[in-house]
């Protein structure tokens, strides 16, 4: 017991030495500031920023790349609160719930304090999620080590089913369709077992398969650019910022809400593909029901603001838990992080505890530095950030297009990847317009190969029978969970249809 503890402590020490070394600390701070700016500009999301920046990390050492990406991630998720509060347009989808109370506070002249509360809440949320990441991940490694082919297949299906269920405001069916489309996308190219070409139509480019990063850049970059530029709506900024640092009593009032929301956000973050926006809405809803002042939510409540803002940042650490233990990202930005660390030879999953035992702690300590940077720079930069919100999006968004082109091209130095990126961008735009969520598509592309190989191997091991699954408790739990998600999803779809049919037309 003591030996195991000492071993973990030594690993933590070595990871901390890496994370606090030069240039990692410097990179984390710069990346966090960059993330804050990106998150604050409406239309630029954490996912888009990470997708574009992955290729910049090629030449970096692992610790520096992790510092760079996590800094941007933490900063961007928090940065969304500036525009949500000051212009009522969430900089990132995860800040949508923040706008409900934040903008009203800004109109009352308390925009500065609202941002201050939002930043402190984000700090508390991320901190709680880091603690959970450190203490829960080793246990999950042990459980994941017992996973066989059936469990890997079922966790892949579970991932897109739950993600499809949670990530759509429309019927879950749409989320599932997109998730399975992701599975299909992953089938294109040479089959991993027999190297047989599938859906390649004689094209050598397609034999290599659809590369993950160009597809992600298309779905989250090009489609986002088109979505932002299609509208020609100028926005006005509340110019009265007021003081930024909140009073001690105010912080005290929202602290218990922030702690509760931190746990909610971390928990939702750990659900495959669920993401920051769902965490914020669920936490806001729970906060409203649990608070003594629930009736004030939506009317300029600091508690409401803290509920949403804590949970979306808490999602970050939570999303790292399934990512590190099962290679299943908990949110779309976490999927980008997964793609980036794959490039650096890190293979998340239960074996990570043996192959790169200090990676968990490197992630946790880097997140800690990014969180501290977010608190300090977030508060310091509040006034200049209001000026950033005035950036002309009609200039900014077209400039991102060449960046998406380079981002897609750089991985394999192949023009074909730029074409893939554009096609996925258009596909993503059309699907978005039809209310299909994008998160299950990403998860499907990532989990598709695992689902394919695990399912075939599991069936081969059982000589075509699924009876061996009955002797696997984790497999049975996953199977029951999938069936439950399916039934509840179908029920929700029917309920939604009935409600929309009963609506006055």
């Amino acid at each position, binding site marked *: 017991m003591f030996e195991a503890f000492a071993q973990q402590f030594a690993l933590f020490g070595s990871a901390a030495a890496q994370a606090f070394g030069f240039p990692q600390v410097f990179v984390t701070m710069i990346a966090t500031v960059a993330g804050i700016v990106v998150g604050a500009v409406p239309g630029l999301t954490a996912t888009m920023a990470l997708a574009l920046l992955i*290729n*910049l990390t*090629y*030449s970096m050492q692992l610790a520096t790349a992790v510092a760079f990406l996590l800094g941007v991630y933490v900063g961007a998720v928090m940065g969304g609160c500036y525009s949500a509060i000051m212009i009522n347009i969430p900089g990132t989808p995860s800040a949508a719930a923040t706008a409900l109370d934040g903008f009203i506070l800004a109109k009352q002249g308390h925009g500065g304090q609202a941002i201050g509360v939002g930043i402190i809440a984000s700090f508390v949320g991320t901190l709680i999620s880091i603690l959970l990441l450190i203490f829960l991940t080793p246990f999950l490694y042990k459980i994941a080590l017992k996973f066989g082919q059936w469990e890997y297949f079922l966790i892949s299906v579970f991932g897109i089913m739950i993600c499809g269920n949670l990530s759509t405001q429309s019927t879950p*069916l749409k989320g*599932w*369709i997109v998730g*399975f489309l992701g*599975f*299909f996308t992953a*089938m294109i190219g040479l*089959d991993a*077992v*027999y190297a*047989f070409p*599938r*859906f390649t139509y004689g094209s050598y480019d397609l034999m290599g398969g659809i590369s993950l990063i160009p597809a992600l850049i298309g779905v989250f970059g*090009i489609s986002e650019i*088109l979505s932002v*530029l*299609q*509208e*020609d709506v100028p926005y006005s900024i509340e110019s009265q910022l007021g003081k930024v640092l909140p009073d001690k009593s105010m912080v005290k009032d929202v602290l218990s809400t922030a702690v509760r929301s931190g746990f909610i956000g971390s928990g939702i973050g750990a659900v495959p593909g669920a993401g920051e926006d769902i965490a914020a809405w669920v936490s806001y809803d729970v906060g409203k029901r649990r608070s003594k002042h629930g009736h004030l939510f939506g009317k300029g409540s600091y508690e409401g603001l803290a509920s949403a803002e804590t949970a979306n940042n808490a999602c970050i650490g939570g999303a790292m838990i399934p990512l590190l233990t099962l290679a299943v990202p908990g949110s779309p930005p976490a999927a980008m992080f997964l793609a980036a660390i794959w490039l650096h030879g890190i293979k998340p999953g239960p074996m990570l505890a043996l192959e790169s035992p200090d990676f968990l702690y490197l992630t946790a300590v880097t997140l800690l530095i990014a969180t501290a940077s977010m608190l300090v720079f977030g508060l310091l930069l509040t006034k200049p950030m209001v000026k950033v919100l005035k950036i*002309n999006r*009609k*200039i900014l968004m*077209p*400039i991102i*297009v*060449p*960046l998406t*082109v*380079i981002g897609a*091209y*750089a991985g394999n*130095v192949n*023009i074909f990847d*730029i*074409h893939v990126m*554009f096609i996925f*961008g*258009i596909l993503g*735009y059309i699907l978005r317009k*039809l*209310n299909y969520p994008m998160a299950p598509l990403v998860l499907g592309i990532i989990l598709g190969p695992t*689902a*394919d190989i695990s*399912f*075939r*191997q599991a*069936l*081969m091991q059982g000589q*075509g029978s699924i009876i061996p699954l009955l002797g696997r408790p984790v497999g049975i739990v996953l199977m029951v969970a999938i069936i439950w998600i399916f039934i509840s999803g179908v029920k929700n*779809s029917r309920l939604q*249809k009935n409600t*929309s*049919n009963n609506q006055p*037309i």
Partner: protein
Amino acid sequence: MSQIKKTTASDLIMGVLLLAFGIYLIVESLSMKVFNSFLDAPGFFPFILGIIFCLFGIVMLVGSIRGGSVAATKATFRKDNLIALFLNPESKRVVILSFFMVVYIYGLIGRIHFAIATFLYLVVTFWYLKSTTWLKNVIISVLSALLISAIFQYVFKIPLP
């Protein structure tokens, strides 16, 4: 009313597309080579996906037909509605911006230097969006094209397309 109509019409079209796609996947996967047994054949998983897409397609079709999608689809494809859709400023803007991207990605990149292609793309896009004055447009386009090219090529050592 129009939003509900649009949704049910798109559900009907998506249902048909999914069903057709599912059938295509089943046919294509059955024609793939079987090495040992079908359970570990390259076509096995796409075959399962084909069945799933067919089921999704049927569910969508049935749901949308019950919701009155046939009439809604007919209304959507009426001449006046189609004209309204194409004349809609948002649709027009997206089509034109996508066209600029197509020219940039498929026509210019790989044929002329990346910086020149980027400059041309930005100038035309800024002009169409009326982002700024002509002079500022040219200055921002030149600076952006040069800076992006130089930073990626020389600072990050990333090859340009």
